[in-house]
């Protein structure tokens, strides 16, 4: 079974803090993705990576950066957290190539106060 794990289920941070969200997958997948999910807006892609050290912007990259130093790990960084970044963050992975099914982690519910 594919397993995608995320470092925290719930996280509370203060405005202006630097926040790291970690995602690890154990299926040797090339592709990894970060989404945020908000009521009424659905899932929106923040960044994705198709290889180590490679990254591509998604639909809403502003205010975020990512790091992929190892194949199994993909980190999402909020350089200076703001209240409008309060959301559910979902990590996913998939096989190499495009249009494959994605395997999701359990999500991190981040609250910025």
């Amino acid at each position: 079974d594919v397993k995608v794990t995320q470092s925290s289920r719930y996280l509370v941070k203060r405005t202006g803090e630097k926040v790291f969200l970690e995602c690890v997958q154990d299926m040797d997948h090339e592709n990894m993705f970060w989404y945020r999910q908000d009521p009424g807006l659905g899932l929106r892609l923040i960044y994705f990576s198709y290889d180590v050290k490679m990254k591509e912007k998604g639909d809403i990259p502003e205010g975020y950066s990512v790091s992929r130093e190892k194949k199994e790990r993909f980190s999402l960084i909020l350089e200076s957290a703001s209240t409008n970044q309060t959301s559910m963050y979902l990590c996913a992975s998939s096989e190499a190539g495009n249009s494959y099914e994605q395997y999701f982690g359990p999500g991190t519910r981040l609250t910025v106060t």
Partner: protein
Amino acid sequence: SQQGEEDPQALSIQEGENATMNCSYKTSINNLQWYRQNSGRGLVHLILIRSNEREKHSGRLRVTLDTSKKSSSLLITASRAADTASYFCATAGGYQLTFGKGTKLSVIP
């Protein structure tokens, strides 16, 4: 964006009934996928239908795809209380998937 749009937004049925959800999208796709999300959890992949397929089955799930109408439907037969969840369609045209906003299904025991 080739975002899918699900219809209805919410659906409430009795256990044992069938549930049908629809998805419409705007541009050409490689495939269309359906996912389930239980409250507050990650998404789980249910089924993938390629652009050259018209119908696909998996257990109690039946998916249809009409590329001429740019629409898909997901049918869950003989629903169970455990099917209560949000269901999302996702269109695939490259590396990324584009998700709709989901249909919230409630199955009443």
